[in-house]
């Protein structure tokens, strides 16, 4: 039993390494980070809601780009391995097909988690950039945190530069090191930002404060859970379908998931739809953060349990479909 399920880890690790080195995953992550960091700078006429707009837009980007990253990892890894025979080589080893499938799913989730970690920092920076609302006798408007905006753009540029340097000097792989730097630099940037007030004045070590609105973290985690559900659907579908149809069908299920709670109030067909597709509304709770609100930990926990149950059910179906598949 240990031998059979012990295979999950190496399959997951190799899937994650492969996924993080896909050029398309790097480009999507870079584009998402820059778009999230830039959007508070280009917002106009926000009437005091600039922080909320930055947060909601940032989370929207995180979800859309996260789903795209998952599509390129979960949606393609198993289908490609079945097509090119890599899966056959692995499955000629003492690995059960369910363990292989679960390993592929977890590897894809790991890529999505690295993506979500990086983009959550981008949203935190975007929020801080946009946050200040200034009213005087003559005028009112947003005052953006220019230093934060600058740093949030410097982070991806520096990650690219450092990864290129590591690659040039040591021949280590560019993609992996880019993500290592993109994950490690934001906390350092946040620590540095804490030394400055929002207007750019020096606070020093004595006045250091994080200055980031961490209430978005549970929301980002919930979106990661939704991306994991997407990964499970895409992984299960690719046991029988090619990448294109599997990803298209997964998108459709996700879209239906956003409509599912409305359908649940309808007739039996609506109830059936609600039972089959994941209720994406459980995971999109950005409105709870308006006017200083927070997302209750109990809700996040319930969302995690719901996602875990849904993923387990979908993967179980995937295992049944994969059990007798000719490779």
């Amino acid at each position, binding site marked *: 039993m240990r031998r059979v399920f*012990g295979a999950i880890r190496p399959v997951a690790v*190799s899937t994650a390494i492969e996924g993080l*080195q896909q050029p398309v995953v790097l480009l999507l992550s870079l584009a998402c980070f820059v778009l999230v960091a830039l959007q508070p700078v280009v917002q106009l006429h926000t009437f005091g809601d600039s922080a909320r707009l930055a947060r909601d837009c940032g989370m929207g980007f995180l979800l859309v780009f996260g789903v795209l990253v998952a599509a390129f990892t979960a949606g393609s890894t198993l289908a490609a391995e079945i097509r090119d*025979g*890599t899966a056959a080589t692995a499955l*000629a*080893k*003492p690995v059960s097909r369910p363990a292989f499938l679960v390993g592929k799913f977890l590897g894809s989730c790991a890529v999505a988690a690295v993506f979500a970690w990086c983009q959550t920092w981008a949203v935190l920076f975007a929020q801080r950039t946009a946050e200040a609302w200034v009213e005087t006798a003559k005028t009112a408007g947003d005052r953006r945190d220019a230093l934060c905006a600058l740093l949030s753009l410097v982070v991806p540029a520096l990650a690219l530069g450092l990864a290129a340097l590591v690659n040039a000097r040591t021949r280590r792989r560019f993609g992996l090191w880019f993500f290592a730097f993109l994950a490690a630099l934001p906390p350092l940037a946040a620590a540095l930002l804490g030394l400055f007030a929002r207007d750019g004045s020096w606070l020093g070590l004595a006045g250091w404060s994080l200055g980031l609105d961490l209430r978005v973290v549970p929301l980002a985690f919930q979106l990661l859970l939704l991306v994991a559900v997407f990964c499970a659907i895409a992984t299960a579908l690719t046991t029988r379908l090619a990448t294109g149809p599997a990803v298209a069908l997964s998108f459709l299920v996700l879209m239906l998931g956003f409509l599912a709670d409305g359908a649940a109030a309808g007739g039996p067909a609506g109830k059936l739809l609600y039972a089959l597709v994941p209720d994406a509304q459980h995971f999109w709770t950005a409105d709870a953060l308006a006017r200083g609100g927070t997302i209750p930990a109990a809700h996040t926990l319930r969302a995690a349990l719901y996602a875990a149950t849904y993923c387990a059910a979908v993967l179980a179906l995937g295992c049944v479909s994969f059990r007798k598949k000719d*490779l």
Partner: protein
Amino acid sequence: MTEETTGGRATLEAEGLRKVFRDFWKRPRTVAVDGVSLRAGPGEVIGLLGPNGSGKSTTIKMILGLLQPSAGRVRLFGLDPSSPAARARLGYLPELSNLHKFLTPRETLAYYAGLFGMPAALRRDRTAALLRRVGLDGRAADRPVGEFSKGMARRVGLAQALLNDPELVILDEPTSGLDPVGRREVKDLVRELGAEGRTVLLSSHLLAEAEDVCTRVAILVDGRVRAEGRLADLLERRDRVRFTAAGLPDGRAEAFRRELEAAGATSVEVDRPALTLENYFLEILRRTRAEEAAEEAK
């Protein structure tokens, strides 16, 4: 192939294998393999020969449990081929090397070693030893496999097939993409594996290659076994006798030919045995390298 030829203890038994590929509506599309039976024991090198599309790879995949047979049964070490216990004792090199292009050879072997559940220390030792054995130690071991030539990728594939020190080695077109030196190394390796008492099943459409290493062959055409048996039995011409001699003076050969004809022999031929092109090529290569080494030593 009979029980007598395998000494009773079969590593691999396949009986009446049949594979029908079906279309989307489950209608039969192609009969890829029809009634193939094989039996192999320790120390045997079995060649599965046939032209492209004759069903060699399909047979191998059914033996490995990667394809579900439409009829027939397979046992490996007396076990179902999908059982982890059976798979832990076999090594498989697919027709195409099928490697993860972003992983290095070292990571590739570590990945497959992980699938065998090897402890870290053993994994490191086996990886290092196999990379040396296939000539990929040094810098090549840390370059992504996607950058490799077909021949280099084939070497990584071979290394992964031997990772678990297998008792049964299944090689699908093992020399495809290799240069003459690589081909010779693979042939030597296959002979070595057989001599160590392992069972080797190899498929090939290169007959000279199979002739060099196989103890027995099965010839597949259109999914059916058309001939099988010990190579020596299949190829021996019982109505012919060959003499080979060294040091015979010029002119004497003709006298011997006449003498044989006088004794009643027909179709007598006298010729000089030739090297194979492979041996000649390797000899030239060896000589060139020796000269280069001597030059460098000066």
